């Protein structure tokens, strides 16, 4: 009895774990667990969004000036890239659901990874690197001499903390996708068992949603229509 119990701790090939009664129960538990984790993540980013909202209210003109230092075209491109990656992620789950070959699942996963990597690449090469050169990275490279110096510095702190934390989540996501590719290559996903794929998908979409809010809050609501005027 005890020996049998110990052995069942090792996951069997179909991914069914000993503590559950049914595979459905296990699937539900996994999904609920990931949603709860996302609730945690909402509050994690929420702490920063709260601070951002309050400070934006306190230092409105400075935050608008800071916002206009960012390049909308890169922000918009990256938004599109992330939306594409969400689509490919959803399609990879669907491939598993309908029993497509593991090649198809891997294809969509790899495509998702490429898009994710593209996002980080654009962020690094065209945004952060340029910010570094322009001297608008607080604490590391700061030579900004325009109006609202301290307030703009505050805005850029938020910009780097928020986008940095988001990029860190992207990197973690890429790691998870790598694991999924390996699992898929070993044929672990079937129409009956694709829980890891599905809950990783939830995470990936969540990271997308964070960006959906970061993009307007950081890039767009800085009174861009006044550019050049005044």
């Amino acid at each position: 009895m005890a020996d049998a119990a110990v052995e069942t701790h090792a996951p069997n090939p179909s991914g069914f774990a000993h503590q559950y009664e049914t595979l459905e129960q296990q699937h539900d538990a996994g999904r609920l667990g990931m949603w709860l984790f996302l609730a945690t993540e909402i509050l994690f980013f929420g702490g920063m969004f709260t601070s951002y909202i309050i400070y934006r209210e306190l230092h409105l003109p400075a935050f608008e000036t800071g916002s206009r230092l960012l390049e909308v075209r890169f922000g918009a491109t990256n938004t599109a890239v992330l939306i594409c990656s969400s689509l490919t992620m959803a399609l990879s789950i669907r491939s598993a659901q309908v029993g497509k070959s593991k090649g198809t699942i891997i294809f969509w996963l790899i495509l998702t990874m490429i898009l994710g990597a593209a996002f980080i690449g654009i962020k690094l090469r065209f945004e952060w690197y340029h910010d570094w050169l322009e001297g608008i990275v607080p604490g590391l490279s700061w030579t900004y001499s325009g109006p609202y110096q301290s307030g703009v510095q505050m805005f850029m702190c938020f910009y780097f903390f928020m986008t940095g934390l988001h990029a860190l989540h992207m990197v973690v996501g890429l790691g998870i996708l790598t694991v999924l590719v390996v699992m898929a290559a070993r044929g672990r996903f079937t129409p009956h068992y694709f829980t890891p794929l599905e809950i990783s998908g939830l995470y990936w979409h969540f990271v997308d949603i964070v960006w959906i809010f970061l993009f307007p809050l950081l890039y767009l609501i800085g009174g861009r229509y006044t550019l050049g005027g005044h």
Partner: protein
Amino acid sequence: MHDAAHNPEESKLVDPTEHIVPVSTYVMVFIGLMIGTGLTTWVAYIDLGKWNTVVALIIAVCKMLLVVLFFMHVKYIRSLSRIVIIAAFFWLGIMVALSLSDELTRKWEMNPAGWGPRLGLNSQVVSSKPDTLA
């Protein structure tokens, strides 16, 4: 003992038709998200005054709903996930609202109940005289 009783092949299987979303739906959602992105970028260059922020946030919320309902299957699955999402946003709302209740009222001079102007910082009574510099 439960290995036999709960072998995955014999146990109740996950219903594969539970939430398979047609590819066409995914593509429509994708197009919707792309349009949203274009729209929000375009609107940012139009002067709507305070409404710029509101419009940007409304579009962001719509995009989020598209992702949550379709990509994340919340529309198709009856489960606790909806409660979890609502709870998380409710708690976020608590944090924002109560923090703002401090930050935004610190500079209030007159208070509505007529308790007098000198409750907060040390300021003279505010006259209703308009901006002296304008």
